[in-house]
């Protein structure tokens, strides 16, 4: 739990509080190690907190997060710092000094999450948790399962009157408008980088014209549209005009497997799109769906998941890369592709096109400044001396199962380093 206790000897720093970082932190703590877990966002859970369901079980990620959060709450060896990032690292394996910086939340630990501040707040901000598809109040709870269960104030989105209203609404003296950034240093024996991934910027693929139409969304936006706590309460509607789409197209490898963008395969997108077809089928049992793909990567036990969809007469599978997307006047879009098997040119007009955008390592830009060694794609490599180790999608594109495995392995490496 968050507190200001000083660093015990042999502690481990875990950077990133998504599923990989949470796993690494808990696995190490449950062996008996002290752990600092820091997270850039105001909440733990990372990308999986934004997902509606996991493949192939179609179970809610919040179920596993609930268990993990209870594990954190029952383990005093885990110290959590949200809105916190690494500024610099010095020292070496067994003995690192890491300077951290916490941004001001403007809401202190008195917050009971009663919500009176948000009720009183007149100002709104774009809700980044929902990729800007809706607004939240300027003082907000990041999501239903936010951990810590505390509000956050986006001061930049708040008027002077708004700030006053927020301050006055709180009965618990939890609003601290003078909160300043805080820098502090921890001594740790090992660092686990679990900084995760960002969706590849869809505007970089100029041929897919992401900005030209509301009918072109990314797969992560689709997760939010299908989620019960998303911008539409879980109803899959076209952003902008809230139309119930009658037809859908999935554009696989949007950025991945492409030398001009991400040369690697992003590992999850085939299964993610098939999962999202299940979301569509729940709400639109006979909607027409076209999937443009290079290969369908559903190896091993995932084949069963794919086979169920292959019998759906209203799904068309086209082996071929989408060359162009054209916005139509009625709000729909036309996808242009060539079928690689038949050579046939295809033009498919749909109400909603989903770009299966790939994973880009989130620490890519920051890595050089922190002295991390990364591969040519920005994935973090383990330090040969053993004190620094990467986990999850900071290490390579991977699904949740693989992330949890690599995070458990990273906890082991960190524990070994702390014996020095």
């Amino acid at each position: 739990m968050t507190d200001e206790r000083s660093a015990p000897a042999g502690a481990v720093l875990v950077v990133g509080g998504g599923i990989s970082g949470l796993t690494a932190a808990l696995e190490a703590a449950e062996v008996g190690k002290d752990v600092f877990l820091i997270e850039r966002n105001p909440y733990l859970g990372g990308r999986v907190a934004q997902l509606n369901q996991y493949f192939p079980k179609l179970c809610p990620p919040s179920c596993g997060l609930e268990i993990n959060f209870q594990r954190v709450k029952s383990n005093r060896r885990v110290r959590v710092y949200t809105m916190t990032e690494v500024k610099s690292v010095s020292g070496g394996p067994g003995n690192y000094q890491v300077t951290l910086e916490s941004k001001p939340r403007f809401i202190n630990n008195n917050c009971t999450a009663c919500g009176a501040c948000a009720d009183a707040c007149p100002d709104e901000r774009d809700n980044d948790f929902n990729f800007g598809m809706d607004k939240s109040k300027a003082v907000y709870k990041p999501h239903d399962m936010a951990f810590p269960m505390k509000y956050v104030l986006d001061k930049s989105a708040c008027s002077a009157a708004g700030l006053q209203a927020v301050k006055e609404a709180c009965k618990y003296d939890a609003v601290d408008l003078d909160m300043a950034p805080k820098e502090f240093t921890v001594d740790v024996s090992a660092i686990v980088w679990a900084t995760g991934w960002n969706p590849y910027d869809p505007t970089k693929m100029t041929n897919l014209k992401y900005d030209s139409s509301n009918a072109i969304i990314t797969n992560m936006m689709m997760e939010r549209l299908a989620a019960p706590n998303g911008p539409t309460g879980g109803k899959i509607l076209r952003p902008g005009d809230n139309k119930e789409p009658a037809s859908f197209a999935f554009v696989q490898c949007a950025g991945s497997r492409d030398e001009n963008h991400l040369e690697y395969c992003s590992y999850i997108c085939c299964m993610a799109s098939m999962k999202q077809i299940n979301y569509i089928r729940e709400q639109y049992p006979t909607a027409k769906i076209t999937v443009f793909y290079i290969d369908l990567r559903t190896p091993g036990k995932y084949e069963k998941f794919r086979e169920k969809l292959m019998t759906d007469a209203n799904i068309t599978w086209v082996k071929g890369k989408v060359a162009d997307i054209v916005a139509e006047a009625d709000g729909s879009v036309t996808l242009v592709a060539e079928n690689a098997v038949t050579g046939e040119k295809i033009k498919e007009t749909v109400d909603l096109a989903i770009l299966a955008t790939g994973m880009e390592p989130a620490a890519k830009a920051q890595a050089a400044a922190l002295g991390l060694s990364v591969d040519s794609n920005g994935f973090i490599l383990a330090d040969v001396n053993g004190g620094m180790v990467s986990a999850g999608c900071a290490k390579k594109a991977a699904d949740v199962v693989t992330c949890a495995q690599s995070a458990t392995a990273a906890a082991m490496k960190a524990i070994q380093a702390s014996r020095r």
Partner: protein
Amino acid sequence: MEKKYGAYICTGCGIGDALDIEALAKAAKSQGMEAKTHDALCSAAGRELIENDITNDGVNTIVVCACSPRVMKDEFNFGDDKYVTRANLREGAAWCAEEVTESRSAEKVKEFATEKGQDYVRMACVQAKKGDVPDPYKLETINKKILVMGGGIAGMTAAMEASKAGYAVTIIEAQDKLGGKALGWRKQFPTAAPWTDLEEPTVQAMVDAVQAEAAITLKTSTEVARIAGAPGAYKVTLKAAGTASDWDAPKKVGVDEQDKISKGEMEDPNAGLQPYMADDASAEDFGAVVLATGWNPADVSEYAHLGYGKLKGVVTNAEFEKLAKTGKVPANVAFVQSPGGAEHDQDFPYCNSVTSMVALKQAQYVREDNAAGKAYVLYQHMRTPGNMEMFYKGAQNNDGIFMTKATVTQVEESGNGLAVHLKDTLLNEDVTLNVDMVVLAAGMVPTTSDKPTINLAYRQGPSFLDLELFDGYADSHFICFPYETRRTGVYACGGVRKAMNMEETIDDACGAALKAIQSIESADRGVAVHPRSNDGTYPEFFFQRCTQCKRCTEECPFGALDDDEKGTPKPNPTRCRRCGTCMGACPERIIGFKNYNIDQVGSMVKSIEVPDDDEDKLRIIVFACENDAYPALDMAAMRKLPQNALIRVVSVRCLGSVNMAWIKDALSAGMDGALMLGCKFGDDYQCHFVKGSELADKRMANIGETLGSLGLEPERCAVRQVAINEYNTVDAIINEFVEAIVDLGPNPFKGF
């Protein structure tokens, strides 16, 4: 411990507005507790109020009537020696109060919400009286050595990693040397950027390192006869590989089968073997086990059109690797990835993405060994996920490697070689290839698919359970928790749990070694491992009243309970995951935890006030799973969605822990219905104790009959499945049930 109670009611966060606080205090008083109120109990001042009572009055048992037990856990933690119970007034009564409408006045809404709050206060007081702080179970002696079964890449990695963390390890390997399948590889996949080039095998270096490590004991040509005991205290009988031993693990014999064997109606499958509870004095002690017994190549002779076993020159990828390792491979080779012909486009069974990679590797052997060699890789879907895409790209740049999507319809003899007929290729036409050899991408069958392998001497039998869900792999069912299995202290890794490449195997084995260490250290601290990590309670049995019905030993999802010859359970607390399924199963109600037991929850249920003359105030008890249904209710309340005013919710560890006595308690106290809200069950079950909600559903069917015989409608009890993210619909599920009860009318035994 002599209990000194303190009860505290928070009036903040709208509790004071929605509920009549005086009435709540009266409810506490009815349980003999003078409640103090505070307008923000979680604040520094609020906690000081409690801390002062602890310091000045010796309060050690604290009833916090405030928000949900899921929040403010740290704020209301007053040390391990203080017992704290929580009445969920905020999410449970205030925030989920009904809407005020024309037909529902504000006074009525408050009256109903207050009655709910009063019941929660009474229940928390009773819970405090009937529960206690944990007193962790400690083994008398703990052994921290790790047994690694299997000396391939996975086993060697697990052993090295555990030894680097300071733990002694014994590797047992059935072959006469370490190394496993990797010894037969000519080259291995790239393990680092740029991910394009094959690497020289590193297995011998690993073998050398393992042999040089003082903390690792090696036993080759050895197998496990049986593993008895529990985490921290396993007793393992080893034997020479390939031999039979009278210490081999006995097969599972169910209650009915044992009955038949005793009557001489059935042959004892374990005749000649030592009983599973026998104590082998020469067994070795271990603390945890890593299962890394790997895989065997799949049989591919069933695909007649591919000609394996009939046509000379059709081989498996494993056979081709052997050929490549020991000599020169032919110049023209086709690699077939998908056996479905025109029927389907799946890969061979047991493949995962490894076999795509193997074909790309072996295609390079064709080029290395033959100046004009040609390799044809024929796939339906090229599976090279993640960085392996670059390996695929590298192969595409090799002039002699031809790759195409293709449906392989037939392989037949043609002259001295083979003809491979293809349809639906990327050349937009049907093609016939003439080659010297055809390599089939046979899958990797786990050693657990047809043998127990782990050889446990457990009451529930020697194998992992329900592996058919994973095609026989010793895999986990849980996406977030890939190391969870139904046998605490045993962690699988490598090819036995999934077809995986070397890089994946090394990560997996490293993680499995950590889990093994963690289970040992948790046992040493006397706490549970996942998912109730750090829980210091464990089930205690009052054996004098045990009738040897064996329900607990049969139903425990983790096989924690063995038994003696009479059938009296023998608990193994370090195998236990604290779900309480045994407690739910026991008809004699003799199993319980310090802070969660039959008397406690039954008394909580009985403390609910049941008006016996008001048809508008029926009472429905709801047992909600603490991990999914209860959080869903909480989140619904945080969204200020109204919940039915007639329900009273009890958070339970798992629906499997719900003893039917509680349902009877509720109905005999005059409550009108009982609803159990648990996780989804079926093949994609979400229960983290595997079978809890499914077991509850079965038990409900039985209790329905009992109710019927008492003249009560079986529909008064039900199980409903709720996922944690169904907070928008959970109330509708409850309302549907409650409305059916309202239609049935009040419990006819009300008031008796």
